């Protein structure tokens, strides 16, 4: 029961953080590229790599995983907004930008995950 509440709490924080990153990016950067979603996703990938590896190492227990990994990182990152942004870019005759956005997200997201796990191994 407690882990459900922890996931709920993590999700209630992760999603608004993504929303705030999105609005900040929109206000600061005039170029209409989805910087907000990209930063939220990459940040979440780095953190999740760190948390999951900390869990494997025994530093972060199941409750911490529910709150930080499943709840916070899961809600901070998104596929649904990402896919719609890709569709909008591709539909707006910006196929190269769309392909670039996809490739950068996947490659850097994976790199961030490895980096987060590496940091966790170095720390604990």
């Amino acid at each position, binding site marked *: 029961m407690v*882990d*459900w509440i922890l*996931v*709920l*709490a*993590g*999700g*209630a*924080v*992760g*999603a*608004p953080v*993504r*929303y*705030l990153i*999105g609005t900040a990016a929109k206000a600061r950067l005039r170029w209409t590229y989805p910087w907000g979603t990209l930063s939220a*996703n990459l940040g*979440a*990938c780095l*953190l*999740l*790599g760190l948390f*999951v590896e900390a869990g*494997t190492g025994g530093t972060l227990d199941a409750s911490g995983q*529910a709150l930080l*990994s*499943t*709840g916070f*990182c*899961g*809600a*901070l*990152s*998104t*596929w*649904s*907004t*990402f*896919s*719609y942004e*890709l*569709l909008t870019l591709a539909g707006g005759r910006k196929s190269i930008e769309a392909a670039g956005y*996809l490739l950068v*997200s*996947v490659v850097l*997201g*994976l790199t*961030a*995950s*490895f980096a987060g*796990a590496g940091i966790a191994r170095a720390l604990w």
Partner: protein
Amino acid sequence: MIIAVAAGGAIGALARYGVSRMWPNGGDAYLVWRTGAAAFPWTTLLINAVGCFLMGVLTISLKKRFTGASPLLSPLLGTGVLGGFTTFSTYTDDARRLFENGQPGPAVAYLILTVGASMSGVLLGVACVAGMLQVRRGGSDTRQGREGS
């Protein structure tokens, strides 16, 4: 606005947790089979594909059909619920674990399959709603035509 996103995010994350508890595999679970091979993360793949489909349905519905809907609906359901339901970080982390477990084939397959399923999902969602609206409009046009003649 923030509260709507937070409430939605909490619901979405909870739904994802529920689904991944129901079908534990490579996703949020740490299931490694006795053979030493990690399970293929079908659950996360399915969650992301379904979330993208619903995002397509929601966004086009709000844009084309329910134009007078509350401005809170998109942050609540889109940014909140669907954003909290789908996850990019688990996607890359699942792939990382498959790579680290010496399964580069499934890892690459998972990376590509998720992109394909999610993009198909959002496209299908958009197409479904667009098609339904087309049928409605077409139907009312025929009626008007008959009345006119």
